[in-house]
């Protein structure tokens, strides 16, 4: 089986996989990074969201071959100690219920704030509309994104 060399959370990782394997399954099954979740496999739910060169992408829709040469960040690598302002805001607002979708929500929010430090409500909704939360934590997500934006505006950097 082909071997792929990936840049995951700042480290070089190799994985044996078929070239068309979605990055999602390489992360979860080959590299043991189970924080990235499987939800639908067709790019509809966003549970598998990771950062690819800083942009939020659906890892079920990116093949391992196409991920080579890009910086991949998963929830495990967003910060060394859960100290990213988005993660801290998520705790402060007590966002998660079942929690299954929250890796995707947090990474989508982190990507948004990295390029749009003070997003409007509509920009928040637009950036997160692709990540389903069946438990309905959406209003807390909105509050947490605002809280994180404020913290980052005051110089609390990831």
């Amino acid at each position, binding site marked *: *089986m082909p071997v792929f060399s990936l840049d995951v959370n700042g480290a070089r990782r190799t994985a044996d*996989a*078929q070239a068309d*394997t*979605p990055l999602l*399954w390489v992360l*979860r*099954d*080959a590299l*043991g*990074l*189970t*924080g*990235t*979740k*499987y*939800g*639908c*496999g*067709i790019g*509809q*739910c966003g*549970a598998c969201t990771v950062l690819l060169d800083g942009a939020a992408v659906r890892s079920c829709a990116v093949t391992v071959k196409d991920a080579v040469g890009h910086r991949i960040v*998963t*929830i*495990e690598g*967003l*910060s060394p100690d*859960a100290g990213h302002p988005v*993660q801290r805001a*998520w*705790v402060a607002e*007590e*966002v*998660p*219920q*079942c*929690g*299954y*979708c*929250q*890796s995707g929500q*947090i990474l989508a929010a982190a990507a948004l704030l990295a390029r749009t430090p003070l997003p409007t409500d509509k920009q*928040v*909704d*637009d950036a*997160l*509309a692709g*990540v*389903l*939360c*069946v*438990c*309905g*934590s*959406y*209003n*807390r*997500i*909105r509050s947490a994104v605002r809280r994180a934006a404020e913290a980052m505006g005051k110089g609390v950097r990831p």
Partner: protein
Amino acid sequence: MTAVVRMSRRDFLRISGGTAAALALGVHLPGAARAAPGANALTPNAWLSIDEAGTVTVWVARSEMGQGVLTSMPMLVAEQLDADWSKVKVVQAVANPKYGRMSTGGSTSVRRSWEPLQKAGAAARQMLVAAAAQRWGVAPETCSTSSGTVVDSRGRVLSYGELAAAAAKHEVPAEPRLKPPADFRILGKPVARLDVPEKVDGRAIFGIDVRLPGMLFATVARCPVRGGRVKAVREEAALKVPGVRQVFEVPSGVAVVADSTWAAIRGREALKLTFDPGSNAGLDSAAISAILADPKAKLEVARQDGDFEAAFAASERKLEAVYEFPFLAHVTPEPMNTTARVGPGGAEIWSPTQSPTGAQDDVAKALGLPAERVLVHTTLLGGGFGRRAMSDVPVEAAHVARAAGAPVQLVWTREDDMVHDFFRPVSRNVLAAGLDAQGGLAAWRHTVRAPSVAAQLFGKAQGRPDVVEGAVGFPYRAGAVRVDAFTPPVGVTIGWWRSVYSSQNACAEECFLDEVALRAGKDPFAFRRDLLGGSPRLRGALELAAARAGWGRPLPAGRGRGIACHASFGSYVAEVAEVSVEGGEIRVHRVVVAVDCGRIVNPNTIEAQMESAVAYGLGPALRAAITIRDGAAMQRNFDEYEPLRIHEMPAVEVHRVPSDEPPGGIGEPGVPPVAPAVLNAVAAASGVRVRTLPAGRQGAGKKA
């Protein structure tokens, strides 16, 4: 630091009489903490243990699916123990009858744990006091407890850790004294959820995240029609998919076992399957509607107050309406899965299950083992909503693991999850009401035509049909009330969906009641309030919701307000929705919730569960539905069955009616009023009365 710890090997050793080694099951999760009490620990019962360091371990027998039991259950223990909350550690209990029937459903966790878990903590506290009193040579009555210490009248202090070993020698009180609610320091106060930190950095282990040494991954192909089966399979192409190891039949279908989930999915796609769909092959939604509408149906009477027929005939004005509800899927965020390891003498299961002892019994039966030889670990659940009360997935995983001869994680794809759900039953609700000359409610009839979950699961049920739940308790004063039911089987697998039959029946009842109020020329809130004298708690919630929502105050042009209330699972909830309808599109702007759920454990959780109920109820109210063609569900993934998204989430305000009543449920009762409040608001905003759900499917295009 308070922490959530999972997996206990020692528990298994205890239940299996110390013979676990003979089971050849020497594996447990890497990093799993040992949670068993040491020799010097105080372990007065199954629920808690206090070690020499003063750490309080609490075993939680309920499944955490987002509703907060990993926090609320230890709060009950800690309150009566007078524990130092920062020293409380939580362990998910493995399935064991010593915890009673471990089932998380019916919004029962707090209700059924309220007394036993407080007593468990109180028993330990009483033993610690006895040990301290003995050491000091004073009467126990002169001692008090506070935050993990015993203090006597002279100010001497001993910590629970220092006392644990001595306390263990005292008798466990059978009926420990409970401190009165007025003295509560933890219960009723906002406490941060213990499972939040691990859910923001990828550490949380859901069922699908379980990893065992040598573990393989599996998918199973099943016939999508209830009662159907796989007739023939050609596996050559599947076996050529890189990573696929084995293909074999199991009772539920054909399993593909592979080195990775992806290989198992690809292998399954490569199977050449022929199904025998059985007797339900020709079934579709129209045929099911016709079954429910059968004009010759024999109705079972569930409630009869007075003579409905006579009261209706004598009514000044008469209304009749039919409300129709589709099948719904649960759509747990985490697709169904279970990891199993089966040895010659026993089985070990890791499952995101709402029913650990049910899974234990059903897996044992499937494998021909005694139940005590099946160890069931409950992982975190990525949503439950009633779907995970069923043991079909753990049983299937056990079959696959046994045949594979290796630990296997069975993963259902989202398509499997949606097509093979135990759907919320379809229903046809036929209502009739009569008004007297003064606009009073003279007669009320609610006929529920729906398949019975109890009958499908357990055979012909005795007593009142389950389908009238949420209808039979009609709380409004009326001259005569009749509630009856028709429960034909419909050839589609059905189950319990968050709030069960209240999800349809409350919607039909509360929407039709709005129609009746408007026909009587009355305000829908005032009409309800005036008829709720017999249910003061429901009326209290209704009045609070109306007041906080500003009922009666003018709204911007194009907006409408709707109100609905319902009592279920021991709690009383009223909701007011504000919507606008533009070009047939319904937009929900705000939902005000008022809840009376009796005494409470954690107000944070109550607020979160009400927010959750609004989101969970809105998707089906607006657009989600499962339809049937050729005997199978037509919707297979989120592109065809779409839960609510963030830009559609209304502002939600939650208000609580203070109450000293016994605790009510909280996971489900917020759901039933959502759809009727919204649909009543749609009628107010647009004049369109939606009677067939979901609302969006008919574009809200018909005038009432």
